[in-house]
C-alpha cells in the first residue's frame, strides 16, 4: 500500500510527491486508530475504576519488553535507510533483516500474551467474562484485543512490505540513487512503533 507511483507512460520520478503521498497515508492511519482512541477515552471516563482494575492483569514486563523490541527495530530501520543513502547496500540489507527479526520477536511475544489470556478465558464473548467480570472490564478487554489486534495486523503488513523491499533491493530496483520505497516503508514502520508507544501506557501502565 506504499504510495510509490510513477507515470507508467513517461519517465517521471517525483521523490517529493512519493513522500507527500506516504505522509497522507500515515494521516489516514492515525485517524483509523483515532476512532478507537476516542472509544477508549469515552469508556475510560465512564468506567475508570474497572479499567484500572483490568489493566492490572496485563503483564507489564512483556509490554515493556515489546516496547524495547519495537524501538530497537525503529533504530535498525533508520540504519537501513541511512546505509542505503551512503551507498552501502550490504549493510542496508543487514539492518533491514534485523528489523524483520525484531518484528517477528514482537509477534511471538504477542502470541504468548494472547494465548495465555485466552487460555484463562479472558476474551470477548467468553463464559468466564460474562460470569466473573463486570461491564467496564469487558469493554477494557474488548478494546485491548481490538487495538492490539489492529496494531499486530499492521506489524504483519510491515513485515510483508520489508519482504518486498528486500526483493526490490536484490533486483536492483532500489539503489542508493533511488530509494524512496525503502524510505516510505521506514516511515510506515515508525508509525507502527509510535502507535505502540501510545498503546503501552493506555493498557499496560494504566493500573
Amino acid at each position: 500500500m506504499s504510495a510509490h507511483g510513477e507515470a507508467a507512460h513517461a519517465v517521471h520520478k517525483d521523490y517529493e510527491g512519493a513522500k507527500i503521498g506516504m505522509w497522507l497515508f500515515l494521516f489516514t492511519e492515525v485517524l483509523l486508530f483515532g476512532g478507537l482512541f476516542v472509544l477508549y477515552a469515552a469508556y475510560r471516563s465512564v468506567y475508570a475504576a474497572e479499567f484500572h482494575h483490568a489493566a492490572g492483569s496485563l503483564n507489564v514486563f512483556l509490554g515493556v519488553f515489546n516496547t524495547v523490541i519495537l524501538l530497537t527495530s525503529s533504530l535498525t530501520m533508520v540504519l537501513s535507510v541511512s546505509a542505503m543513502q551512503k551507498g552501502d547496500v550490504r549493510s542496508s540489507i543487514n539492518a533491514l533483516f534485523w528489523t524483520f527479526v525484531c518484528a517477528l520477536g514482537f509477534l511471538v511475544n504477542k502470541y504468548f500474551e494472547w494465548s495465555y489470556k485466552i487460555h484463562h478465558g479472558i476474551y470477548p464473548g467468553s463464559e468466564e467474562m460474562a460470569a466473573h467480570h463486570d461491564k467496564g472490564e469487558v469493554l477494557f478487554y474488548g478494546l485491548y484485543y481490538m487495538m492490539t489486534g489492529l496494531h499486530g495486523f499492521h506489524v504483519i503488513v510491515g513485515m510483508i512490505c520489508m519482504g518486498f523491499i528486500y526483493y526490490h533491493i536484490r533486483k536492483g530496483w532500489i539503489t542508493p540513487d533511488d530509494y524512496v520505497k525503502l524510505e516510505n516503508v521506514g516511515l510506515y514502520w515508525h508509525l507502527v512503533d509510535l502507535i505502540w508507544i501510545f498503546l503501552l501506557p493506555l493498557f499496560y501502565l494504566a493500573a
Partner: protein
Amino acid sequence: MAYAGVAPERTTFYEQGTTDKPTGLKSWLLSTDHKRIGIMYLTAMMFFFAIAVSLGLLIRLELLTSGPTLPFVNQRIYNSFFTLHGVIMIFLFVVPGLPSVFGNFFLPLQLGAEDVSFPRLNLFSFYLYMTGAVLALVSIVMPGGSPDTGWTFYVPYSYETGPAAIMAGLAAFVLGFSSILTGLNFVTTIHRMRAKGMGFFKMPLFTWSLYATAWIQVLATPVIGITLMLVLAERFLQVGVFNPALGGDPVLYQHLFWMYSHPAVYVMVLPAMGVVSDMLATFCHRTIFGYKAIALSSMSIAVVGYLVWGHHMFTTGISPTSAKIFSLLTFFVAVPTGMKIFNWVATMYKASIELKTPMLYTLAFIFQFSIGGLTGLPLAALSTDIQLHDTYFVLGHFHYVAFGGIVFAFFGGLYYWYPKMFGRMYDERQGVIGFLLQFIGFNLLYFPMFMLGLKGMPRRYYDYLPEYESLHALSTYGSWILAAGLLLMAWNFLRSLGKGEEAPDNPWEGTTLEWDTTSPPPLLNFDKEIVVTRGPYDYPEEETR
C-alpha cells in the same frame, strides 16, 4: 497560455493507450490513463445510478396511496428498498461521483499535467470501487433478505439483523478505501503536478474544490472504516463497544458514524460547487466574481464541516452544552456557502449569459441548492429540530442538496464536458427539454416533502394516514416526470456518441486549460509544454476593456 494553432493530425487517448495493444477490453481494464479510468468510473456509476433510481421510483410508487399499494412489497421489502436506494446512491454514486469521474478526467487537464501523481494507485482505487460495488450487489441476494438497516447502519439493529447488513457494511468499508486513495492521489497531484507558472491562485475553481474535497476524503474516511469494522467485531466477537448489554453505548456509534458522514456531505457538494463555478464563468463569458473568496470558502467549509456532526444527534440526549455548540457551528457553515451563492449571482449580473443546457443546470443548481441550504437552518436550530427530526422535512432538505444540488451539477458537468470527453456534441434541443422535465419533476417530487414533514409525516414509514395522501400522490407524479427527463437525457448522450456532430476543441469558449487541447485529448493531454501566464478565467476582451 498561448492559443497557438493545434497540430491537425493527432491520435486521441481512445486510439493510443498505456498498454501494449491500444484498443480492446484489456487496454481499458489495465489502463493507468486517468482519462480512461474516468470513463470507466462514469460507465459503472451510470449503471448503479439507474439501479438506485429504479428503487427510488418503486418507493414512490408504493407510497402513491395510503395502505399497501404494490402487491409484492411488504414492510420488510420496503425497508430493503430505502436501504439499498440510500447505500447505492450515497456510497456508489454521489460520494465518489464528481471526484472519480470528472476529477479523474479533468484534474490533470486543468493543471496542465500529463496524469495524476500515482497512476497505478489510481487504477487500484477503481478496482477497490468495483469490489465494493460487487459486495453491495451481493448483499441484495444474501440469504435472510436484503439489508434493511437504512444506509446509516445504526446499532444495535445492524449487528442483530440478517447477514446482508454486514455485507453492505463491508461494501461501504472497501469503498471508503477507494475514496481515501483517490483523495491522497489528488492532494499529491495538486501539490506536485501543476504546470509551470500555475500558482495555487491560478488554479480553476473546480480544481480548488477537488483540493478541499481530497483533504476531507483523506482525513474523514478512515473513521468510517474503523467504525464499520467495530460493527463487524461486535457481531462476531461480542467486544461490547456498542452493545448496552455489555456496557457499550450505541450513541457512540452515531458519533463515530457522523464524524465521517457529515464531512462526507461536503465531499459530495464541494466538487459540485466547483463545477458550477467553472460553468458559470464560461457561460457568462467573464471572470468569476470573488475568485479568491470562492476558493477559500471551499477550504473553510471543509474545516468547519468537520465540527458539526453532532447536529444529527440533537434528539439522542447529548448534553445541552454540546448541542448548543454543534448548533452554532452548523450555522457557521452557512456563511461560506452563502458567500459562494452571492459571488455566483454577482458574476451573472450584467453578463452576456448564454443559456446552453449546462448553464440551465447551473441556474437550477443555484436555485435548488439555496432551498436545500436554507431548509437546513431549521434543522440546525435546536428547538425546531425537535419537531422536524426524522420527518419528511429532512428528506426534502437532503434531496434538495443531494439531488437538486449535487446530481444536477453532475449532469450539468456531463453536458459541459461531453464534447471534450467524447469528441461529439450532444443534441441541444433534447438537452433543454430533458432539463425542463427534470427541473419540473424534481421540484414536484421533493417540494411536497417539506409540507409533509411539517405536518409530521415520519421518514422511512411503509404506510401513512389518509390525510397525507394528496401530497404523497403529488410527489409520486413528480417522480414520473423526473424519470422521463432522465430517460431523455440518457438517450441524448447514448445517441450522440455515434451520431452527434463532431465537437470543436473549445465549443464554449472556455478559458481553463482543458479547452486548450484537442477533443478528445491525446494520451499525454497536451502536445506542447504548458506555461501559465494568466488567471483561470481571464477573458481576452476583459484585458482590453
